């Protein structure tokens, strides 16, 4: 079920009303059933993958808890391998298979394994990572094994963050299922405010920018420098509006129900360097890689060469987490290179960081390697050509980017809070915002970018 759909507009208030009208014992059941309904709205049978994942990790954690020594490690490995096998099969099988087939073709070798015709279960990368963080934390004795299957199932399946995060940690989310959540006016209004802002970013800003981005990136060879640069800048704000919009809706929906999820974005395009960018962009994923990959590899407490290796591994894995393709790996590698350059030469500039991030986005967005390199090599060529794209729509795109930037600046840097305004002005903003979403939102179904991960 998409957040920007009429189904969710009916589903969410219904769930919220049922949830608050029910006694505490029933509340979690309602949330679990709602989560099943939410997930099964995509491909119903794929819920079985989630159920298997939940059972494996629940049992594994129960066994890891009291176990000692090698057995403890073995159980963790079994749990992680199970999670990664599911992820590997659905997400990476065809990627590695086609890579091997291409490799075999170079040497004229017969490669008999055919590609599988499978659809990636929506949000699989998100909930496997969330599930793994639970067993790892139990292994590290930072979290006690959850005795109630219902609570653990909800930890993995809690519908606001089920398909595109934030990737929660057990320390934050699990204890919240023990609390009694009564209707809280402030939580509801704060949550609704976030939902409204998230929808605005997605439907009005990101999807409108996507129209131009899709046009240019579908046939980049038809365009020259200025068009390619604009499309790349638009994509930078499209993916930001899209994903941070999704996160805001997720955090907002959870907040309405009384849950506090972690912040996933903190005005990333105001970062002064790549290191800061990753502290502000998809925070739940970057901290996941920091805590469960970078630090166990030794982090920066190793010699310089190994540290460089650690950085490369983390960023390339982060790239591959996003998508099973070499372009994503290259995207990760570019970020790793920028990160290393920053750490070695201490270069700090908002503009430079934004330009580097945009350059890397080309590899993230391009349909194939040829397109990506074509775009990079043609950024400073040729005349500007709108190719039939309405100039007013292009202007609107820039206008929305400016609006997003100003709101981020005012909200993030200047710490302005809409809630502090007098209520007539606040209400006017809410009404105008809602009207803009409902009347000026893009109606073509553009899926959330991060849904594919």
């Amino acid at each position, binding site marked *: 079920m998409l957040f920007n759909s*009429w189904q969710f507009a009916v589903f969410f208030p219904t769930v919220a009303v049922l949830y608050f009208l029910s006694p505490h014992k029933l509340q979690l059941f309602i949330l679990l059933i709602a989560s099943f309904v939410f997930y099964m709205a995509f491909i119903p049978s794929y819920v079985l993958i989630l159920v298997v994942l939940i059972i494996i990790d629940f049992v594994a954690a129960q066994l890891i808890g009291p176990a000692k020594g090698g057995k403890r490690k073995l159980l963790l490995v079994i749990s992680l391998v199970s999670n990664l096998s599911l992820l590997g099969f659905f997400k990476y099988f065809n990627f590695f298979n086609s890579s091997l087939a291409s490799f075999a073709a170079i040497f004229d070798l017969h490669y008999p394994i055919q590609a599988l015709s499978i659809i990636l279960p929506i949000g699989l990368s998100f909930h496997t990572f969330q599930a793994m963080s639970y067993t790892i934390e139990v292994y590290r004795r930072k979290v006690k094994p959850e005795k109630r299957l219902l609570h653990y199932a909800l930890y993995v399946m809690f519908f606001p963050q089920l398909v595109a995060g934030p990737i929660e940690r057990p320390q934050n989310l699990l204890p919240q299922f023990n609390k009694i959540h009564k209707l809280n006016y402030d939580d509801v209004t704060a949550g609704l405010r976030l939902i409204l802002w998230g929808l605005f970013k997605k439907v009005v800003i990101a999807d409108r920018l996507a129209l131009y981005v899709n046009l240019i990136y579908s046939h980049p060879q038809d365009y020259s420098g200025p068009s390619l640069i604009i499309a790349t800048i638009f994509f930078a704000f499209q993916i930001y509006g899209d994903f941070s919009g999704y996160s805001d809706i997720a955090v907002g929906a959870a907040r309405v129900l009384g849950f506090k999820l972690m912040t996933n974005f903190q005005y990333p395009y105001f970062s002064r360097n790549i290191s800061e960018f990753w502290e502000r962009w998809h925070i739940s994923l970057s901290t996941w890689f920091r805590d469960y990959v970078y630090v166990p590899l030794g982090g920066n407490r190793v010699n310089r060469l190994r540290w460089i290796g650690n950085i490369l591994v983390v960023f390339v894995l982060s790239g591959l987490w996003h998508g099973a393709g070499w372009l994503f790996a290259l995207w990760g590698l570019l970020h790793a290179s920028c990160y290393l350059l920053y750490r070695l030469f201490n270069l700090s500039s908002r503009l430079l960081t934004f330009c580097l991030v945009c350059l890397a986005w080309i590899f993230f967005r391009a349909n194939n390697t040829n397109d990506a390199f074509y775009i990079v090599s043609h950024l400073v060529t040729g005349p500007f050509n709108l190719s039939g794209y309405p100039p007013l729509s292009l202007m609107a795109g820039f206008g929305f980017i400016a609006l997003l930037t100003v709101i981020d600046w005012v909200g993030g840097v200047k710490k302005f809070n809409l809630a502090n305004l007098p209520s007539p002005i606040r209400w006017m903003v*809410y*009404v105008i915002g809602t*009207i803009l979403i*409902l*009347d000026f939102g*893009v*109606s*073509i*179904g553009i899926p959330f970018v991060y849904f594919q991960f």
Partner: protein
Amino acid sequence: MKKLLLKSLAFISLLIIAQTVVVYCLRLGFFGDYPLAVADFKKGMKDFPEVVFFGDSVVFTVDPDEPDRRTVSQLLQEKMPGTKILSVAHSAYNQGVYIDYLKYMIAHGVKPEKVVIEINLRSFSPISDRRPQYQFEKEKIFLANDLNPVFPLIYKPLLVLKYFNLQTISEVTFKQTPLYDGEKHIGTVADCYAYDEKLQREQAIQKVFQCLYLENISLRNRKLDDLINIAGLLRDHRIPVVFFITPIDYASGQKYFGDRFLWQINKNVSFVKSSLENQGVVFADFSASLPSSHFLWLNEGLPDEHLDSWRESVADGISKMISDEKGF
């Protein structure tokens, strides 16, 4: 809870007022989305036409080099000067959208003396039937909701929230649709998509003929189902209807597939005809009525059904069918 409820109600009321201002005062109701074809049809309905003629590009396409600029629709009106004919024609129009226009017509109390429905054989092929751009969902939505007084207020919000679906068939699904030659599976739309620059024109033409005309039409075919529904709807409302199949370039098809081509065309036409005649309608078959020289595509491009000056003979045939007392 009470405070929240009251504030929610107040917010919804404000929203409705704001939306009313946007739609009725700022006149941004449909945000330029209102389909021109529907507006023209509504205008035409006000004249209470005696004949409503549904067709696709075949009925309005004229070769740019041709001195006679009259379309099939215009020729038809000239041949029947005393009859008010409303032509409803658009490129790639098909049975799937005709039925919505007819429902609208009936709902608005317009009862013509005859309805004429053009059937283009290519419309039965998945390449045409399932092409996302040929579903005309927006027109269907506007036709279905015209009588709903709050439609202007809710149209755009429901579109943004994806209640109204303008793309019922995705490009991916379309490309994955299987194609058949007779009953033999010959790949998917993506495989058979003939408009591939790598193909020589001759190969491309052959592919078009195979993919568009050679699949066995069965009762499972969506377009045949639409035709049967159209016949049923008009019969229930006692509106006489005649169907005719447009000429196709069967001679060129035979060049590539031999007699099998004409055999398959005849088989499909017979099946469509018998399925419709079961509904008691009048049916004319012009499918194999013209030699290749009358089709415009031969000069350039890929096979289609657009005609040269022979349009007049088609208009003649239709006018005779209209004049005929029969209809069911």
